């Protein structure tokens, strides 16, 4: 595999900038970019996991210093997250043996990114229209009680000041872990909205908590991918990390200059565009219909 070091470093910087700006890990951008550069999807997914572990660790430390972490909530999400990651890595291995891994990675990206992107664009546009009409941009959330709050096994999370059933917490943890292992994304851009909408986690603790979860699921995904598929490329990961953490610092500063709703609209457009790019990739006749996969030596 020969890819220019500076191209990778530049991609790390660019994605780091975006991740710092929007407060996300950036895996959903990094993995596709690597794939479009010609790195095999399997290697990209496995190596990006460690890159996200690095950037979310930086974030988690920052939030820990500000005392904005809910460790109890993170631990509950995590217990299911690890199971989700292990299941994801197992499915990943199976799909690779069936030669359908690239297709599933592609399809997952198309579905997830276009749906999430469309929702974000819708939300962002609505906020834009509201500001134009002179109304406050943020819509007040509907009543704080939903069906989620009727589930049993309730638990109190002091730091976030919520009292919810552990069932949705586990479900969210599992989904994030599973999706992360298959797609090579930290899932921050999914986890944050899920925590806000389903569990009503306050904004004060949501990002920090999500970063702790991302950190641990991605760190364990790196180890599991290295053990089962031997696909992690440490050199590639290191270059990405270095670019990513530097870019994130500048991105965070740029993000503070922009209003939250506009930021979300922009992120939505970005997410949607990446989803479309994947759809294009799957729908257009490839240059070469044939490809090789190494099965074994000897």
């Amino acid at each position, binding site marked *: 595999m020969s890819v220019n070091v500076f191209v990778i470093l530049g991609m790390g910087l660019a994605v780091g900038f975006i991740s710092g700006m929007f407060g996300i890990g950036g895996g959903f951008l990094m993995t596709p970019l690597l794939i479009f550069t010609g790195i095999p999807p399997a290697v990209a997914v496995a190596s990006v996991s460690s890159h996200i572990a*690095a950037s979310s660790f930086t974030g988690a430390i920052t939030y820990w210093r500000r005392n904005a972490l809910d460790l109890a909530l993170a631990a509950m999400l995590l217990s299911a997250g690890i199971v989700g990651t292990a299941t994801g890595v197992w499915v990943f291995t199976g799909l690779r043996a069936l030669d359908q891994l690239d297709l599933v990675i592609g399809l997952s990206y198309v579905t997830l990114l276009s749906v999430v992107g469309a929702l974000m664009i819708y939300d962002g546009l609505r906020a834009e229209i509201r500001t134009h009409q002179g109304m406050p941009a943020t819509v007040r959330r509907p009543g704080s009680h939903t069906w989620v709050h009727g589930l049993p096994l309730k638990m109190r999370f002091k730091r976030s000041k919520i009292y919810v059933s552990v069932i949705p917490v586990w479900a969210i943890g599992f989904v994030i872990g599973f999706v992360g292992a298959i797609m090579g994304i930290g899932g921050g851009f999914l986890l944050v909205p899920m925590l806000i909408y389903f569990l009503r986690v306050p904004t004060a603790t949501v990002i920090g908590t999500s970063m702790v979860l991302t950190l641990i699921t991605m*760190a364990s995904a790196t180890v599991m991918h290295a053990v089962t598929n031997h696909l992690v490329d*440490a050199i590639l990961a*290191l270059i990405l990390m270095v670019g990513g953490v530097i870019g994130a*610092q500048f991105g965070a500063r740029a993000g503070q200059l922009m209003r939250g709703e506009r930021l979300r609209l922009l992120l939505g457009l970005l997410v949607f565009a990446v989803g479309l790019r994947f759809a294009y990739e799957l729908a*257009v006749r490839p240059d070469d219909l044939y490809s090789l996969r190494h099965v074994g*030596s000897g």
Partner: protein
Amino acid sequence: MRRALILLLALIGCGAQGPALAERLVVSLSNHQVLVLSNFVGEDLVLFGTIEPDAQTTARASGYDLVVTVTGPRETLRTRRKERVLGLWVNVDSREFVRVPSYLAVLSNRPVGQIAASETLRRLQLGLDNFLLTQRVGFDLADTVPGDPFRTAFVRLETQAGRYSELASAVRFLTPSVFRAAIPLPADAPVGSYTVDVKLLADGALVGRANSELSVSKAGIEQYLAEAARNSGLLYGLATTLMALLTGWIASIVFRRD
């Protein structure tokens, strides 16, 4: 050139010899041990050889032809073909090529097709098209016909990657009986032992044969990492994770704002 001649003189008398063949073929490689470091950009190995006609055989009027086949360590690969399913391009069909060379170079003094009749070429496995590439068919293993689409695609992809090659002018005759061949090793030459099979033909028939071997081994940090990734996945994964945490921690210190 002088070095080459000394090499040749030293070699005469220790070469391989086919039992029932008329010509004695003596070959030597410039280097039997190729050490690939991280700055390796590929290398041409040089093969020298001489042809000694038997006392009984008269000089051949039409001259000699040489085909050198270099094969790398064996591996198993799957060739997959995408087809359109519900508007999407999906890997539908695939064939497994079992224990095929990870490196294959066919060097000759003129296009292989001109050297002998196609029947002879096939029997002697001369040229990329005639090399035996075993394919798994159900539970059996079988050779493939040269026109098989999966075989064609396999050879094409390997050729594009620089691992397979057929070079029709890589063998040069320095005198009518002394020859030299350049074996191109790519930068990502597979590690392992290679065999060099030299076949001498005259008038479209095999008249001499010799073998040699070489080994490619890697050294340096990249090889160390590649081996670690394969042999001790857990340790490698933990080390990568530790590296990630360290990078993240350093970044949080360096860019600390509060």
